[in-house]
């Protein structure tokens, strides 16, 4: 009696069969890069709270940064390819996927979508190449799910703006060369590009995190920061500006978390095959098989949902509540899988030598940022009933 464990749990449903050759190649390229450059070190980086900034230009060279945007040095892939890249990045670590999400979907997308020609020319090629790093300041210490209450304020002073306030939980904040900052103005919410080194703009990294340790999270402070009007994103008016960016990033997340789940499951399947108790591998026991089956089934469903949403996005007909379905379901399933995989690994599961608990810890952040489970539940609830229950 001997078994040959499935190498990739997504192969059970032959998920690759719904992808194009180009999509598979892009995915395989990212996977190879991460296997060479990130995976051998990620446990150590997580433990030491180290973000490998030197990889940014390499990711830029591959074309990962802002890959789904057109022009300005961006690769211009379709949405599904972007999702698959996020999947592989998050299979290595959610911290890397977070870096790429913020760089491409929040920082770059905000400039690409709402910026002036001059702003695009100045920042997008450098951000795409990974020579410059971007961040995105929307959340504040007291305003997370309800960004409309933000206290960061920009007021006119002659032709300039004076920016005051602070932003919290900002990925890449401490290393960013440019911050997209959202602030209240007389005319509602507006976005500003604040370069690093602007007088009055300081950052402080948030230490002692138990999640996303291989990624930098910071607080941004703005104390009488003077900005020319050319720093304002001219096309962004109101909360629609930042929310459009969040939809981009959430799309990356609903694909990305599949990677964390797949990697956890691969670790669990491999471990269960080699761990012998009572004279046989624990993968031959019914209780372990039930765990592995339930997880593989839920991962397959989540993957099909992600590809479906990707196809809708590529047809330019995806709706925000559909992205909410994907983010809500896939992160929820992924964290459940990562935690369950830890149980398959027994005591070894608490060691950084194995990925599931690291993934589970990372996913705690992923579950909260870019819209909590609760907010996405209510977005979907409103789509079903017509009642906005969060106001």
């Amino acid at each position, binding site marked *: 009696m001997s078994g040959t464990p499935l190498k990739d749990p997504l192969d059970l449903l032959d998920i690759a069969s719904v992808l194009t*050759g*180009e999509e598979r*190649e*892009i995915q395989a390229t990212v996977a*190879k*890069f991460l296997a060479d450059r990130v995976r051998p070190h990620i446990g150590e980086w997580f433990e030491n709270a180290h973000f490998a900034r030197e990889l940014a230009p390499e990711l830029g060279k*591959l074309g990962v940064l802002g890959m789904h945007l057109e022009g300005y040095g961006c690769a*211009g*892939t379709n949405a599904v390819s972007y999702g698959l890249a996020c999947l592989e990045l998050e299979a290595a670590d959610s911290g890397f996927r977070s870096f790429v999400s913020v760089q491409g979907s929040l920082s770059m997308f905000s400039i690409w979508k709402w910026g002036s020609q001059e702003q695009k020319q100045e920042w997008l090629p450098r951000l795409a190449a990974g020579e410059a790093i971007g961040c995105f300041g929307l959340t504040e210490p007291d305003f997370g799910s309800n960004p409309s209450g933000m206290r960061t304020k920009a007021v006119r002073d002659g032709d300039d703006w004076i920016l005051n306030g602070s932003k919290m939980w900002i990925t890449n904040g401490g290393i960013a060369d440019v911050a997209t900052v959202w602030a209240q103005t007389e005319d509602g919410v507006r976005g500003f590009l604040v370069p690093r080194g602007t007088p009055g703009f300081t950052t402080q990294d948030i230490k002692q995190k138990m999640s996303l340790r291989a990624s930098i999270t910071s607080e941004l402070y703005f104390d009488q920061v003077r900005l020319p009007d050319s720093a304002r994103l001219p096309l962004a008016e109101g909360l629609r500006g930042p929310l459009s960016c969040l939809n981009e990033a959430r799309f990356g997340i609903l694909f990305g978390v599949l990677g964390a789940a797949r990697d956890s499951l691969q670790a669990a399947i491999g471990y269960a095959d080699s761990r012998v108790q009572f004279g046989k591998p624990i993968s031959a026991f019914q209780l372990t098989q039930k765990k592995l089956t339930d997880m593989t089934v839920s991962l397959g469903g989540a993957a099909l949902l992600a590809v479906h949403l990707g196809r809708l996005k590529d047809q330019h007909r995806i709706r925000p509540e559909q992205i909410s379905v994907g983010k809500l379901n896939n992160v929820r399933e992924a964290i459940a899988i990562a935690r369950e995989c830890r149980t398959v690994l027994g005591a070894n599961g608490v060691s950084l030598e194995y990925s599931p608990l690291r993934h589970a810890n990372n996913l705690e952040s992923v579950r909260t940022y870019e819209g909590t489970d609760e907010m996405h539940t209510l977005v979907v609830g409103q789509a079903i009933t017509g009642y906005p229950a969060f106001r």
Partner: protein
Amino acid sequence: MNIVVLVKQVPDTSAERTLAGADHTLDRESADLVLDEIDERAAEEALTLKEDLGAEVTVVSMGPDAALEAIRKVLAMGADRGIHICDDGLRGADVVTTARVLAAAVRTVADVGLVLAGNATTDGQASAVPAMVADLLGLPQLTHARELNVDAGRVRAERETEHGETTLDAPLPALVSVTEKINEPRYPSFKGIMAAKKKPVETVGLDDLFPDADGTGFRTTRTRVVEAVPRPARVAGMRVTDDGSAGRRLVDHLIAQKLV
């Protein structure tokens, strides 16, 4: 100047590889097929030379339909065009046939300054094809290169084998086979992957390459695999507890295994 790179699609060395069918050819159905890792380095070397010298790179591969993926990968890395030699008559081709076919394909490319190949592929490991192709084309052959320089119409290669190191120098055109030490291949960029789809790949068969051949003889490959058995599974080692006689027992064992 044109640089031609010869590449092969092979089963992934990290996965289980099996032979199938009465002719004991590779079971492609069950294998993960990839661009051979040494050939990938030959491609990298060609692309570096392309950037330095402004050459065009043509990638040539012989293999079934799926081998197109290996060609596309090199195109994604930056090569300009491909030639895919695909013909049912080449199933199970031996090294001589392979070399003749590859040489014929190289002849269809104009202004060839350099032909590059891996010094061996990780599946067959015959390590004979590059030298044979060079011979058939009448080119100087610089094999097992771990370093390569092209300058002023000449090529210089640092050749490294288990027998030692030599520096080889030859006029262009020439054929160079490279070892896995020569470079670290680049990752194809996303732009490269997307552009590769639009690059020209010519598919040719035996009739195209050998319009005047009568077929018999040439198309019959000269060798065939008569029998193949998997390597026996590894058995547990022998434990020798030292009661004073361990040294002698160890030597007895090595002698019995004909290892000393």
